[in-house]
């Protein structure tokens, strides 16, 4: 079981949309994962044992976990590339 954190500024709007799209993506690709939302400010306390962080906000610190920028889930631009990156990271 993989663990994915989807972060944004307040865990209200953009991470909600991105997290749902990521759950769908992983389901379609038969990747079992626990996808959770959080605020960027919560990353340090929640990144233990996490395989991937997808964030729509800027992540300045290194948590020892790969970080993928999730803007494409909101803008739709470059979405295929972002999806591919996520799948490759979780393989």
């Amino acid at each position: 079981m993989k663990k994915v954190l989807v972060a944004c500024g307040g865990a209200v709007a953009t991470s909600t949309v991105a997290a749902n799209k990521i759950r769908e993506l992983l389901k379609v690709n038969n990747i079992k994962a626990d996808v959770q939302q959080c605020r960027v400010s919560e990353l340090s306390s929640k990144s233990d044992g996490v395989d991937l962080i997808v964030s729509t906000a800027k992540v300045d610190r290194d948590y020892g976990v790969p970080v993928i920028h999730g803007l494409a889930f909101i803008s739709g631009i470059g979405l295929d590339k972002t999806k591919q990156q996520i799948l490759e990271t979780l393989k």
Partner: protein
Amino acid sequence: MMNKLLDKDLIFLNMEATSSTEIFKNLGTVMIQKGYANDNYIEGLINREANFPTGIPAEPVAVAIPHTDASFVKESKIGLMTLLNPVNFTIMGSDSEIGVQVVILLGLADSQHHLKALQTVISLIQEPSFIKQLLSISTQEVALELLNQELNLTIEEEVK
């Protein structure tokens, strides 16, 4: 039936603004005056945008989706402002700026309850024809009707 997330007074069309702060004051004042948001809502929007920018590169013009923490909002609303000239916003998750001409205010008190509406708004941002249509509208009634139509396509699933 008019979607509860919409209010004609939260629709501003073909406005001229010089900064995101000016835009937040316009939309935020209505949110506060109508009792939809707390008195510090405008500061909330300004601070949030400074820390977590919401500019989105979209076609044919860039869009911004300003919002605050849910705790600032008393009654969920979605607002709209179209701009005659681009106003600079920082792109979400970056340091680069982009000239925005469509602002969609996400005044949401609870994202889970309004997930469908949120998803609808985000998918509309990704439709160049919708953005183009928004820019061409000159009356609040027409804009309200268009937004209502789009949001109500999903309302059945949201009524509890």
